């Protein structure tokens, strides 16, 4: 098991390197760099002296060096904890992302938890009461959830929250806590602001998982071991949860790692933009547009790491839940 873990972490590291390299190449593909854009802007404004200033900046950010050297430099510094400097903000990347990274992780975790705690019981209910009114209602709602993009839902909810209920829904903190030091009250305030964005970001995932859970459970309920569990005299609830759901949930764990978690990370970027949340998402989208390559590269690496950790956790969870795939 330990061997397996070490091997998986090794693969994950290789993956991070590859992903960062490929993303660097892709950012590099459009002609020009951040500074060419900047020069264009300055020229358009008729600023002549900018030319020299730009040359200086180019040297400072290493943009005059060949691509490979630039990448290696950045990667080596990355390992040391120096993620480079953002062109746009003219500040170190670590400073820009620092707090945002934490909020991103918290939001992703909250979203995942909400997804699971809602999707599994709803899926089970839907399967156990197949073709009943409950099942139909759950199915219709989950299809709507599946079809509705998170940001649209965010806009709709924002409209109702502000116009109808006169609530504050954007941001992760109330204004009075925005710059306050950490305290229990601030934490509560965070939770108070977190659940709605997390719920919105979870909707798409919930819609899909409910359907998958329902289908899997219906399959499992027809299995002989469910019937033989019932023939042992177990309560219906025990038969369903201990024997059927336990088996039906396996594919969901795989999906958690490979589909749900990535889509939460990606999908929440748009929700974050709409709801003005201090997560990586909005910064990442912006940095890509502006060819702010160290910032973008760092975002990609962190998102990749989050995904890989999510995947690893899902795989370990699966091995824990299902003895058949446990490695000796």
């Amino acid at each position, binding site marked *: 098991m330990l061997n397996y873990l070490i091997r998986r972490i090794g693969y994950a590291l290789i993956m991070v390197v590859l992903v960062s390299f490929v993303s660097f190449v892709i950012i590099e593909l459009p002609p020009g760099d951040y500074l060419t854009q900047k020069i264009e802007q300055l020229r358009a404004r008729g600023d002549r002296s900018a030319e020299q200033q730009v040359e200086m900046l180019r040297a400072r950010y290493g943009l005059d060096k060949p691509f490979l050297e630039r990448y290696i430099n950045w990667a080596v510094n990355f390992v040391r904890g120096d993620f480079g400097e953002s062109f746009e903000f003219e500040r170190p990347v670590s400073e820009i992302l620092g707090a945002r990274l934490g909020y991103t992780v918290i939001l992703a975790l909250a979203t995942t938890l909400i997804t699971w705690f809602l999707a599994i019981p709803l899926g089970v209910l839907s399967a156990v009461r197949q073709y009943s009114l409950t099942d139909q209602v759950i199915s219709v709602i989950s299809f709507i959830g599946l079809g509705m993009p998170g940001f649209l839902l965010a806009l709709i909810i924002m409209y109702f929250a502000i116009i109808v209920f006169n609530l504050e829904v954007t941001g992760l903190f109330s204004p009075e806590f925005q710059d306050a030091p950490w305290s229990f009250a601030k934490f509560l305030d965070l939770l108070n602001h977190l659940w709605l964005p997390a719920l919105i970001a979870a909707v798409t995932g919930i819609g899909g998982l409910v359907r998958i859970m329902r289908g899997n459970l219906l399959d499992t309920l027809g*299995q*002989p*071991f469910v*019937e*033989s*569990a*019932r*023939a*042992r*005299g*177990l*309560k*219906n609830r025990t038969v369903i949860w201990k*024997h059927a759901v*336990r*088996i039906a949930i396996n594919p969901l764990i795989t999906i958690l790692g490979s589909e749900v978690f990535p889509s939460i990370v990606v999908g929440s970027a748009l929700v974050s933009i709409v709801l003005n949340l201090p997560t990586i998402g909005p910064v990442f989208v912006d940095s890509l547009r502006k060819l702010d390559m160290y910032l973008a590269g760092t975002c990609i690496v962190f998102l990749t790491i989050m995904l890989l950790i999510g995947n690893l956790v899902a795989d370990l969870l699966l091995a824990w*839940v*299902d*003895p*058949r795939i446990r490695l000796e």
Partner: protein
Amino acid sequence: MENLSPQVPVATAAPSADARQTLIEVRDLKVEFDIRGGVVKAVDGLTFDIRRGQTVGIIGESGCGKSVTARAILRMVPKPGKITGGEILYYRYSRYPDKSGKTKEIEVIDMTKLDPDGELVRQIRGGEIAMIFQEPMSSLTPVYTAGTHLNEAITLHRLLPIKKLGDQMAEKIMQYRPVTKEEAREIAVQMLRRVGIPKPEQRVDSYPHQLSGGQRQRVMIAIALSTEPYMLIADEPTTALDVSIEAQILDIMRELQKTANMAIMFITHNLGVIASMAEEIVVMYMGKQVERAKVVDLFYNPKHPYTKALLQSVPKLGPKTGARLASIEGMVPDPLHLPTGCVFHPRCPAFMAGKCDKLIPNWTKVGENHWVRCLLYEE
């Protein structure tokens, strides 16, 4: 460890088979499946009984209602099936005294009237009537060990007598307590040993995928018998196993039946197996009972043309005769559009035009304990 067997009031071995007490009495049972195309009468007017310690075989082609009958007894008919008529009387005497300390007399329960998820049904299911299934490969939940499965059944259904110190006198009022974890494990290991699993102390912690098909069926039997049931329903328990394993499993069942005085309802389509197991046989065709007789009568003196045809279609070993294997003509009819009159008439070699396709045959007695549903034997 002490003797872990509860003090079961064993019905003392009766002198003749027929004097044994009735355990299950199925009367005119009807089970219907209301499906999109119409109503399928999966079981239509089944009547038989099982006495304590007796083995009754139920044979018939696939889809004739054998398994549905078994599930109806345990109130486990799958949706959309429903018991629409008849009764299933279970002569229950509770093994353990109730709270006031009295052991109840035999109580007759009509299983068809019970709530299929109710407390009482769940006590009977697994505890007093156990069932083993056709597919040992998938009858154990893959994520739990053999021990976990056994444990479920044992903790749910077994109670142990409380031993009072210094009070060994014939104490009429016995008290019982639930088994502890350690005792449950002990019983589990004992059971695995009894069904012939090697190294039961280790095997008890094996997951189903670490066991072979034969071992899994042994585990299923161990689970079923760990609660010391009064009856075991075996739904084609050896169909999925190869012949040598089949013989071993049948041996185990016979062996354990003798020691536990347990009735067996044995469902199969294998005539060879049933001949070696059962005392009495019920032959079913399309949900209807066509013949019921002692095993010897049925094999040597079958009455119903369907039974005769079934027996003829068993391949025989011996010198090569060049004869083709007999088979039953025609196809199993569509269960939604059953033939009029006797359901077997389109395939029957003794078909009497104008009679068999018009009249529904009655349940007729043709000998001692030998009943048949065929117009040939009616006046």
